[in-house]
């Protein structure tokens, strides 16, 4: 979330799209309902199916799965055509005025630079026109035909309301009502928030769906302001923390690109050159020279100009004394990923299926239920030599080899069936402690890092994850001993000092390393601005720097703070837990004040978060440091950037140009600088917006498994219910929760049920080109057939949370879903595919 959960109470309008907030994020509704009661806020819900969220919304409208960009593209056009955008905001805080290279173009669904052979874009034309100094050219009048605003206007000209509704199947009057209601937040005294979840990301256009949100919110001036923002409701309590820690293949902790096996990654200085924006062509050959350039500042860099400090501090944290200025701070110890290889979930299971992977650790994950095309993923597990499952219960993945695991509702020659005797994978199960049985932090959806103390002792032999990994690595290091082999150095020299004086794992030692410490005295670094790239600081994850402070002779870990005070009344609660970065509760909050840095947006003084105070001291100890940013929230801005500097009106400090991107320049995305509507991989219709059916930049893994509309005419989608959590490994093992949602079910419209002779409560079979599942029919008025470009098209929805273990059992819906993902994030397209349904 750019904002946070409590901040939802400050909104004037909430657009919930691709999220069933009431069911999957119940607390969000507490604050949204408060906004409605206290501010008269409107709640809009856009979803293929009427859900418990729709029941509490002021306005519900359906759309067909996988058509969000059409829906939002129409919104962008509506905002521009009716001049509903927040002009001052757009001109000053976005790249609307930036001129784009003449070579940039868009034809027949393809952006300029399409490489047909390699099926990818050359992005060099997706760039700004620059002056002699490399600074972007702009036209603040927004009239130049090559400015972003005009190009965007032209791009979305095709997204008129009739065309949009033909694609999405949304009733026109409802669509108009949504446009009118949400776009009213473009008024300077109004803010609107967008809430989304997996309904937006789990598509072949997932990242572009979110880009479309970004354009809408920037046009309406809703970013960086209370009650605004783009708010990803994270599906697990600590998934935000997991991404912060880089549990992803393409980054290292703190969202820095992970190094690759290419020449431009060959040593630390090449790597720094590559990952620091604006550094590519600068004259430097070592860190000392680079430091001088950073000190002087260079254009098109933004806050990421400091990347070298984050990388070196991380290396210092990981390799301690072995990381020295003389050896590139042991940069060569870092594993380098193969530039040509993809290591995402789908790719990993494809490789496993090909027999390329020997062993697997599965922690708090259950791919036999949760993985796309889980028939295939289950088969892939049989090709491993060994697998370690770490979970509270022996879940479906831990028991993928049992007879029960290969039961299928119908005989299908295309679906693999095996017996335990045929499977050679050796499976180890390590019982894990539950969240209440261990200490630690969780970073919730609004980036608030909150400490949790242990509530109960772990059951039986179960252990915390930290214990498990601490013991494992200690054992590994013991095995390597004092090996002198070159290739063993990364393990031999890795720092691993998390034991307390009794030899037990000490979580505060992990916390200190993550938050950063001064190498000389071991005291915490008080913020990432104090990190250095000379080896004097160590920090495991720069965005967490500042969470630990030294006060009154001891370390204070801020996620443990529990003060309820809320001086601003905006729900910021600055001393409840801690939010990264630097306890900023609303990022980009420079946007909550007018460009002059002082005046609130007209009529919106109460929601101003920060301001420039020429009389405040930037450094309290230095009486000459006059002029600083101050506010009720921690300014998400360089404190000393005053009106004398060009960057004074550039609130998006992580971007090289400092502006919110209506146009995603250069290599921001793989599939285009503007979101464009493409159909899902399996679609019941053709794309009427352009000549490409599927997002061209998507990798098709299994072309032979693409279901066609003649055989599978119905759209299928998957989702969760409030009663179960993720794959249900936790909740289906709890009788009280199993009672609430006891069986695998499929929701379908009364119209489709009638066509197929299905009655409420019947057992039915749903099939795709990848498999079949059995479920109980829930015939409902809440699903309605769509009118898609004159065609009458049905959609059904399945719970994906069932498996063969626990008190509540049923077939995993993911036996149906395809192995295909988004062009950028590789997030699987769980949300839109083709199927058929019949009585069992």
């Amino acid at each position, binding site marked *: 979330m750019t904002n946070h959960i409590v901040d939802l109470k400050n909104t004037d309008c909430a657009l919930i799209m691709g999220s069933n907030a*009431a069911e999957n994020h*119940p*607390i969000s509704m*507490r604050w949204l309902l408060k906004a409605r*009661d206290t501010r008269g806020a409107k709640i809009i819900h856009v979803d293929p199916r009427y859900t418990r969220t729709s029941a509490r919304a002021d306005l519900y409208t359906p759309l067909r799965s996988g058509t969000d960009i059409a829906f939002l593209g129409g919104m962008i056009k509506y905002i521009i055509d009716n001049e509903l955008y927040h002009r001052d905001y757009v001109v000053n805080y976005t790249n609307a005025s930036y001129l784009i290279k003449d070579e940039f173009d868009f034809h027949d669904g393809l952006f300029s630079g399409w490489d047909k052979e390699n099926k990818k874009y050359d992005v060099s034309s997706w760039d700004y026109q620059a002056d002699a100094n490399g600074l972007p050219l702009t036209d603040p009048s927004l009239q130049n035909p090559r400015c972003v605003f005009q190009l965007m206007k032209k791009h979305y000209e095709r997204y008129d309301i009739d065309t949009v509704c033909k694609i999405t199947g949304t009733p026109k009057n409802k669509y108009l009502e949504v446009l009118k209601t949400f776009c009213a937040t473009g008024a300077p005294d109004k803010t609107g928030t967008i809430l989304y979840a997996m309904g937006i990301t789990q598509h072949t256009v997932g990242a572009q769906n979110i880009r479309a949100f970004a354009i809408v919110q920037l046009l309406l001036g809703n970013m960086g302001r209370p009650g605004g923002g783009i708010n990803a409701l994270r599906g697990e309590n600590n998934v935000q923390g997991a991404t912060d820690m880089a549990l992803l293949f393409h980054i290292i902790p703190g969202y820095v690109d992970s190094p690759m096996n290419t020449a431009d990654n060959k040593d630390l200085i090449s790597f720094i050159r590559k990952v620091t924006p604006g550094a590519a062509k600068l004259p430097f050959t070592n860190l000392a020279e680079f430091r001088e350039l950073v000190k002087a500042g260079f254009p098109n860099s933004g806050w990421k100009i400091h990347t070298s400090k984050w990388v070196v501090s991380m290396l210092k944290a990981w390799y301690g004394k072995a990381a020295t200025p003389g050896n590139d701070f042991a940069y060569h110890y870092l594993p380098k990923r193969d530039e040509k290889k993809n290591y995402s979930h789908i790719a990993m299971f494809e490789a496993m299926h090909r027999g390329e992977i020997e062993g697997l650790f599965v922690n708090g994950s259950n791919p036999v239920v949760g993985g796309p095309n889980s028939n295939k993923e289950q088969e892939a597990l049989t090709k491993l030599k060994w697998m370690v499952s770490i979970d509270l219960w022996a879940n479906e993945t831990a028991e993928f080899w049992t007879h029960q695991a290969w039961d299928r509702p119908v005989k299908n020659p295309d679906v693999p069936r095996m017996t335990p005797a045929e499977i050679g994978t050796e499976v180890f199960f390590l019982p894990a402690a539950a969240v209440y049985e261990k200490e630690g932090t969780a970073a919730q959806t609004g980036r608030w890092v909150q400490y949790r103390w242990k509530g109960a002792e772990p059951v039986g032999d179960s252990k915390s994850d930290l214990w498990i990994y601490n013991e494992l690595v200690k054992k590994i290091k013991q095995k390597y001993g004092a090996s002198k082999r070159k290739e063993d150095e990364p393990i031999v020299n890795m720092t691993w000092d998390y034991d307390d004086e009794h030899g037990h794992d000490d979580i505060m030692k992990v916390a200190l390393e993550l938050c950063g410490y001064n190498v000389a005295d071991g005291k915490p670094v008080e913020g990432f601005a104090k990190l250095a790239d000379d080896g004097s600081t160590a920090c495991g994850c720069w965005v967490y720097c500042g969470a630990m402070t030294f006060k009154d002779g001891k370390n204070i870990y801020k996620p443990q703070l529990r003060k309820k005070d809320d001086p601003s009344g905006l729900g910021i609660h600055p001393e409840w837990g801690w939010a990264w970065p630097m306890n900023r509760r609303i990022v980009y909050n420079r946007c909550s004040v007018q460009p002059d840095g002082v005046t609130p947006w007209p009529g919106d003084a109460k929601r101003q978060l920060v301001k420039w105070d020429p009389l405040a001291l930037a450094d309290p100890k230095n009486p000459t440091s006059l002029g600083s940013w101050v506010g009720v929230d921690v300014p998400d801005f360089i404190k000393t950037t005053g009106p004398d500097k060009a960057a004074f009106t550039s609130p998006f400090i992580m971007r090289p140009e400092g502006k919110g991107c209506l146009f995603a320049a250069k290599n921001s995305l793989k599939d285009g600088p503007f979101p464009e509507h493409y159909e899902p991989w399996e679609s019941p219709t053709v794309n009427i917006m352009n000549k490409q059916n599927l997002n061209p930049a998507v990798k098709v893994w299994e072309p032979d498994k693409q279901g066609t509309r003649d055989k599978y005419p119905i759209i299928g989608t998957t989702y969760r219910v409030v009663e179960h959590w993720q794959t249900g490994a936790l909740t289906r093992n709890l009788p009280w929760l199993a009672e*609430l949602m*006891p069986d695998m079910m499929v929701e379908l419209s009364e119209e489709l049920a009638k066509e197929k002779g299905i009655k409420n409560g019947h057992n039915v079979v749903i099939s795709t080109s990848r498999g079949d599942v059995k479920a109980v029919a829930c015939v409902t008025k809440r699903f309605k057939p769509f009118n898609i470009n004159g065609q009458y098209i049905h959609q059904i929805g399945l719970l994906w949370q069932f498996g063969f273990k626990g008190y509540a059992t049923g077939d995993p819906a993911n036996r149906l879903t395809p192995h295909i993902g988004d062009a950028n994030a590789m997030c699987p397209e769980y949300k839109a595919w083709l199927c058929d349904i019949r009585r069992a």
Partner: protein
Amino acid sequence: MANMTNLYDVSKCTACRGCQVACKDWNQLPAVIEPFKGNYQTHEDTNGDTYTIVKFLEMEDAYSGVQWNFIKYQCMHCFDPACLKVCPRGAYTKTDTGATVHDPDRCIGCQYCTYACPFQIPKYRKREDKVSKCTLCADRTAEGLQPACARTCPTGALKFGDREELLQIAEERVKYLRASGFPNATIYGKLELGGLNKLYVLTDTPDKFDLPVNPHIPKNITAWQNIIQPYFGWLIPLALAGSAFSFVSTRVLANKHGGHEEGGHE
């Protein structure tokens, strides 16, 4: 003492059913897992091990389109409870804060209460041969805690407090709802059956929430409670007297002897 109760506002309920689980947790009631029948609702009605349920009611009309109404259903803790009146063993009592509490130790499992209740709330629990129902968490509230259901509600749809104060909140809320697109919004529990110690804010008429529009206690129950039960204490001796009289008199008649007017005592 003042009546303490829950105000349940359907316009804030997301049917997460945290209340249902919290109730089972506090009262340590076993799960009653029934197969999914095509509705999210777990059970058609409350049962001996399920004191509260959330009902899911799907409806559609041309004007408002599809609606999905949720309502938490449990004992209404009537001011004048039929269960209490019909119970032959005095198992039901009213606490001084208005909860109707059932004492299983006194219950003989006769189930009169289950027939008498206008909301069909007391349920027979076969495994113990006794009846059970919601206690409004009298054990918690006596210690100054909220009922388990209200404590767990994430959206504030359930509020616990002084009935008079909650009634004011409810009146305000209904006014607000009527002005914001719910012309039929109403309070339930204020006047029904002379007042319930459970208040509802409804966004529509009670029938749209499966609540009895005019709950009433059957006439025969009223007769029982008003005429028969008050004299219960001497009805038994009287009945015994009658049977004794009959016993003696038949023999007297058989023996052609003169009879006594008075019967024997128990």
